[in-house]
């Protein structure tokens, strides 16, 4: 059986997803054995960035024009393309700059702006069609495994779409939002992390991004009743999802 040809591409991000895929998850050796690695900077010198690929995994936010051009090329040379990680899926941390005017953000970081060609940040599906979303910062074990094995088995991956609360209850954690009034984002956040933070008695800060069925205004109202200020609430909803919350997907976040 020929192994699927895999390409791993990075845009603006910390590269944690590639690290997770090839080193940190539970099955790195099996992953390397199951796929033919055609391009992935962390495991292969050189490689063939032009492809073709059976599967392209793309991490990172699109924050520069050349990245959008590159992304379109990857799409053309890949049978399947999955966005991997909060940055590629939701905009993630790099999309925080969407909260301020571009020039203002650039000026905060760089003295000389002439070599800076930064654009408004977007997740990859703002530019290309995406076949699957492997959420998380970094991705959770279950969805990553499901994505890779689904490609191998040539089936549609069954990603988790419920709230973090479901995983939290499966573990029997006492709910820190309801019992202790901690501002947990679990009720609106897509599952996949196995409720990592609430299990450590820390409120979820939504690194897996809002789930599609999230009722963000209702949770914001709850946070208000706990005494959070408007700016605290806004920060909570924009930490990993600034682009989605503010612009392109606002309509999808509130169903009905």
């Amino acid at each position, binding site marked *: 059986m020929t192994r699927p040809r895999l390409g791993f591409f990075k845009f603006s991000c910390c590269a944690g997803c590639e690290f997770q895929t090839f080193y940190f998850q539970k099955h790195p050796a099996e*992953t390397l054995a199951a796929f033919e690695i055609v391009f992935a900077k962390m495991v292969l010198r050189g490689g063939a960035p032009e492809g073709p690929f059976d599967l392209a995994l793309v991490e990172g936010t699109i924050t520069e024009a050349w990245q959008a051009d590159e992304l379109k090329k990857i799409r053309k040379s890949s049978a399947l393309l999955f966005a991997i990680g909060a940055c590629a899926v939701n905009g993630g941390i790099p999309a925080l700059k969407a909260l301020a005017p571009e020039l203002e953000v650039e000026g905060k970081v760089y003295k000389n702006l002439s070599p800076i060609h930064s654009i408004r940040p977007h997740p990859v599906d703002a530019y290309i069609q995406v076949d699957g979303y492997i959420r998380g910062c970094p991705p959770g074990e279950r969805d990553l495994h499901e994505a890779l094995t689904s490609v191998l088995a040539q089936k549609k991956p069954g990603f988790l779409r419920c*709230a973090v*609360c*479901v995983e939290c*209850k499966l573990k*029997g954690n006492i*709910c820190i939002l309801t019992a202790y009034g901690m501002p947990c984002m679990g009720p609106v956040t897509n599952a996949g992390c196995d409720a990592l933070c609430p299990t450590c008695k820390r409120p979820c800060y939504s690194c897996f991004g809002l789930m599609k069925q999230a009722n963000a205004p*209702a949770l914001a109202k709850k946070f208000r009743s706990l005494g959070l200020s408007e700016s605290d609430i806004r920060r909570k909803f924009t930490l990993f999802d600034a682009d989605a919350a503010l612009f392109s997907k606002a309509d999808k976040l509130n169903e009905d």
Partner: protein
Amino acid sequence: MYGNGMTGAPASRISDFLVPKASFFRWLDSLRESFSVVGPVAEEDRTVFREIASADELHMEYASTMLSPGKVYLYSPREDLFRISFGKDLTIEEPPRSPVQRIIAGIHACDTHAVFYLDRTFLGAFRDPLYENRRSNTMLIALNCSAASRNCFCSSMGAGPFLKAEKGYDMLLTDLEDAYLVEIRTERCRVLFNADATQSADAEVFRRKEEKERSALRTFTKTINTDGLDRALRENPEHPVWGRTADERCLSCANCVMVCPTCFCHDVVDELSMDMKTVRRYREWDACQDARFAEVHGGNFRARRTARLRQFVTHKLDQTHQYGVFGTVGCGRCITWCPTGIDLTEMAKAIQTRKA
């Protein structure tokens, strides 16, 4: 339907004892040699059901726990069903049935009724072998409640605070300050019961039990009128309370479903190994509040949040045709653990009084 032959032959004679608490707990402790004893234990400021290493750990005067012992120890949040291996031949391997003999001590009346409800699902038309194994290997020591918690409405549902059923569990305790009234319900429990300093319970003890029940009943603040309730809900699928509650308050987080002791839905998941040689098939609790739940090829029966919220509430308060009983035991968990405090009894009231 409860009983199902799962809890041994009915007691040849009912055995009722007055047992000093110290002596009761000594007896319970002695059972740990051959049983895994699970009971209410105070952890930080909450009580959870878990296995005890000593009866000293028990906190019997507990308020409702977040998860019911029946759902965790008889059903199980997540469990392996079987493993398929694709070798030269295809083999299917089931995990061995757990040999654990367990006692669940201190299970409230509502939660005992919730076990009867799970029995209807898992020991009904289809007998689930995993549930059946655990159910028959588990003795239930039920406990009558002395006081209601804020959201309890079991008294409206006939499921508490005192347990009226006489079958389907092994022993019933009533707290009489320094002693328990112990009512033994099964032969297997009668054989096992050898606490010291017991007296047989006389009419005076049962008079004290009645008094306790009356005082427990006085502590209820939440009620629901079940008269014609199922019909009222069935006739009002478009009542504004559904949409309003769904839009303004429901987060689709599914906490209500996960904590509900009668919610029995699960998803079946296949996990393929990277070498494509084995599949692990397991099940885990699923929730109708997740939009994915009612999704089928080409559409979704409950794409709207309103429809999902209504599904949960009507399964509890309307769907009596499923098993001939209401789907709620009135434990109040879905109210307590809903982050926005959505209260199905309030929704029912709005519909019953036809208030918009």
